């Protein structure tokens, strides 16, 4: 069947795997964006820079302190998440009553500062980060070779995404969060510390981006600009999915990654643009996005 299409199965499954990996990153990043947007009403433009920070913090931990991949997978998101919480307290909090546009502008400026500083220190050439020794091998599936590390990335990102979704939909904490998204004043009147919840949510979203960054470090080379292209694609993903639904943004993220991978097989010239083209079509057909609610 594959031979009839003129495409070797290795190439097809290889690109599908790459698509799935990219989709995992789209899903984790758009999930964080959707969470932050839900409670803070801010589009976090610095999300890509924070993803990059996660990767670099893990790399710095390894190269200066000798902290390996597994502890870094927990510590780096913690560090970057705390940085995010500080940003929220010191900067974003002041914009609460203003047009959400200002949040976008502020985080855009923040992204420039963060990327600029990392570029100034580390240059723009990539830094290598080896995958952990325990995940160095691979599986031969007969039709393709599956590196262990990539399998791990897909599994852990699905678990993290679904876990976050379950916490938000099924637990009491999630119920508070959803309530605060709908009506923060009322939730605060019930004695729940909404301002802290806002800070924590921003911190969690940022930590999620940093977590994705650590996961990405052994796959892509580390580069101060690694987040800025990704974040623009993720914005398109968010527009396609609509930010009304957490599960929606997860599904859209994975689906678009796979579509992008398939485009690389069948029409490589369009692989960079296919997500933007889909966005244009969705805007024409359903302006609120696939899972979005009317504003």
């Amino acid at each position, binding site marked *: 069947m594959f031979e009839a299409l003129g495409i070797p199965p290795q190439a097809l499954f290889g690109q599908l795997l790459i698509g799935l990996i990219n989709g995992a990153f789209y899903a984790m990043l758009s999930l964080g964006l959707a969470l932050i947007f839900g409670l803070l009403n801010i589009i976090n433009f610095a999300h890509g820079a924070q993803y990059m920070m996660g990767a670099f913090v893990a790399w710095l931990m390894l190269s200066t302190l000798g902290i390996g991949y597994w502890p870094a997978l927990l510590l780096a998101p913690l560090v970057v998440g705390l940085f995010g919480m500080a940003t929220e307290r010191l900067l974003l909090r002041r*914009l609460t009553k*203003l047009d959400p546009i200002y949040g976008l502008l502020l985080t855009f400026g923040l*992204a420039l500062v963060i990327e600029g500083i990392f570029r100034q220190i580390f240059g723009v050439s990539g830094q290598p980060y080896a995958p952990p020794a325990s995940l160095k091998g691979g599986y031969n599936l007969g039709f393709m070779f599956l590196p262990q590390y990539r399998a791990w990335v897909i599994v852990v990102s699905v678990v993290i995404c679904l876990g976050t979704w379950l916490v938000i939909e099924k637990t009491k904490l999630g119920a508070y969060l959803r309530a605060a998204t709908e009506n923060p004043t009322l939730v605060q009147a019930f004695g729940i510390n909404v301002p802290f919840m806002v800070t924590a949510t921003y911190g969690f979203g940022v930590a999620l981006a940093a977590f994705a960054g650590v996961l990405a470090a052994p796959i892509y080379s580390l580069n101060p600009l690694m987040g800025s292209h990704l974040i623009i694609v993720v*914005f398109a993903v968010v527009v396609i999915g609509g930010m009304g639904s957490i599960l929606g943004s997860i599904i859209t993220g994975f689906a678009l990654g796979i579509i992008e991978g398939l485009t690389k097989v069948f029409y490589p010239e369009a692989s*960079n643009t296919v997500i933007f083209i889909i966005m*244009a079509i969705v805007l*024409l057909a359903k302006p609120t996005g696939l899972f979005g609610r009317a504003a």
Partner: protein
Amino acid sequence: MNGSLRLPLLILFVLGLVAPFLLYPIFLMKVLCFALFACAYNLLIGYVGLISFGHAAFFGIAAYVTGHAAKVWGLPTELAILAGTLAGAILGLIFGALAIRRQGIYFAMVTLALAQMVYFFCLQVPFTHGEDGIQAIPRGTLLGLLDLNNQLVLYYFVFFVFVIAFAIILRTVNSPFGQILTALRENETRAVSLGYRADLYKLLAFVLSATFSGLAGALITIVFQLAALNNVHWHLSGEVVLMTLLGGMGTVIGPVVGAFVLVAIQNYFAQVGAWSTIIQGAIFVACVLVFRHGIVGEIERWRRRKAKRN
């Protein structure tokens, strides 16, 4: 025209006339092109309240078309500029028709994503020459009479085009059409209930803004004789937002001031790595936190407060 504006505009005009004898003309022409770009952008953000993060697409596509028309097709300079401007307008029509379906931050994300698509398009199609860009674009002669390779002649040509475009933008803002745009910004629902077709007006404003952005991109191509990828990069989209924000959104001369300050900063810090980016980001943060009306906006507010006290 607002009477209080006449004096500052006159001063700016005279400054523009004598400037090439005081400062490096190429720097001034860069300022003028970016000032026009920022004024075009301000038309959208300042008067309609739409925030686009993809304006580099119009600027960049116009640069490429102008360069290609002047170099490969051998069109005279004024026609090449016209072709570039037209390309900006057409792209603006396509972007606008898609983007005005969403509001606010979604509008920003949609324009950013569409512009990124144009970036990849320009990276891949052969006529833009990828990473090299279109180089050694001839400046040509103006109407077959004036040699634009003379820097002073070129400066006054760019200045002339800028003044005309600025006048058109000013006239637009102060026309009934401009009033409707402001009404849409202030209260769209009410404007619609009064029978104005909001989407049509927004689209018109968007195309107008894209057209002048295209003109700016076309001019800068003739000045630098180069059309390259940095003209379509999202960084430039961010820079034009910053120029407008720093100078003062919705003010007449704010974008000009913002463009001057930012181009000066870039010139000064061009040699020292990423510092220009860091400073731009810091100005963004500072503007949003403490300086939301921009340089000109804050001066206007200060004058108004003083007038009230007297």
